[in-house]
């Protein structure tokens, strides 16, 4: 079995996880910028983080023969400080031409505040001006349904945004229809407690067969599983899905979306 891990925060993981992923069939890993678990206090802290994502982490992954890609942004959890957010947005273009940078992400909303909306709109503008792919984080738990509605409204109101170049991640049963019907790609995140379990993820896939959907682990420093995608593949096998159907979801779909970036090289 082969798969692509399209959303994993590998700077928070040990190299044991790289080994386990490669042994399970992982062909490439994509790492969106995210929140470190604490607020950074200067734009220089973000500059170091972007350098970690685009220089250091690809080297660490390469030791396990795994191509590593990244997305750049300021996470919505850090959007309340508008001055700092503006400084971080200003330095992102310096990194966009680096090999392995796929686009702007994971941007979006966390608690659906006015400042988060303002910084989200500025990220969308940045992506449009630089013709970048966009990876969207939708909020957690009770905030997800409203946040997804707000995000889609903002994106649909910007005529520069092609929905086929935007993936809206962390969909669940109450948001997936809205995302796909608006023409966006949808990501299903497999988490042990919040977001989707493998059986629920496969339910969604079965109800949206042929849709522009991928699955990811979004593993980070919290309760999460870097092997969640292969475990969901096992769930598909238990239900009788064929190897070709599984390959479509966990390999070919990510390749189709990510190949819209000139920096992505499809694994042979």
């Amino acid at each position, binding site marked *: 079995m082969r798969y692509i891990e399209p959303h994993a925060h590998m700077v928070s993981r040990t190299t044991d996880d790289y080994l386990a992923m490669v042994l399970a069939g992982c062909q490439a890993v994509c790492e969106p910028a995210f*929140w470190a678990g604490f607020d950074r206090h200067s734009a220089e802290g973000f500059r170091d983080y972007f350098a970690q994502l685009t220089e250091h982490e690809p080297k660490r992954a390469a030791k396990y023969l795994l191509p590593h890609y990244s997305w750049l942004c300021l996470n919505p*959890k850090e959007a*309340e400080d508008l001055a700092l957010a503006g400084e971080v947005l200003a330095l992102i273009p310096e990194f966009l031409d680096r090999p392995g940078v796929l686009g702007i992400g994971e941007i979006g909303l*966390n*608690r*659906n*505040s*006015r*400042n*988060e*909306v303002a910084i989200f709109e500025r990220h969308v503008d940045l992506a449009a001006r630089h013709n970048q792919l966009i990876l969207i984080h939708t*909020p*957690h*738990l*009770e*905030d*997800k*349904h*409203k946040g997804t*509605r*707000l995000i889609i409204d903002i994106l649909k109101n910007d005529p520069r945004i092609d929905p086929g170049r935007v993936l809206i991640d962390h969909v*669940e*049963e*109450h948001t997936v229809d809205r995302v796909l019907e608006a023409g966006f790609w949808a990501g299903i995140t497999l988490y042990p407690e919040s977001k989707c379990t493998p*059986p*629920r993820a496969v*339910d969604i896939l079965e109800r949206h067969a042929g849709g522009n959907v991928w699955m990811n682990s979004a593993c980070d420093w919290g309760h999460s599983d870097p092997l969640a995608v292969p475990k969901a593949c096992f769930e598909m096998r*238990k*239900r*009788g899905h064929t190897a070709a159907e599984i390959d479509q979801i966990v390999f070919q779909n990510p390749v189709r979306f990510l190949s819209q970036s000139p920096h992505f090289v499809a694994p042979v």
Partner: protein
Amino acid sequence: MQRSQVLDLYFVDARSKLIDIAAFLDRAERAEGADDYRLRAFREALSALAAQGGGANRAERVLLAFSDPTSAPVEQADGKAATGAWRGEGK
């Protein structure tokens, strides 16, 4: 899949989770104090489980029972973490 296959694969696991929910409610009600917005949302979500028919969309309805139904952005985030249930307007 046939319904019997679904039951073969998932019945014991779902049964276990249902008992966990029952025990959680017993535990919460044994404890002193009043319900809060989370337990109220939980009880509302439980009613979605009783829906009948193939188009009941129970998972979607349970998720919506915990969700913020409003449309306007909030003035300021009240912390970084969601709690799992909507507190209600202006809370």
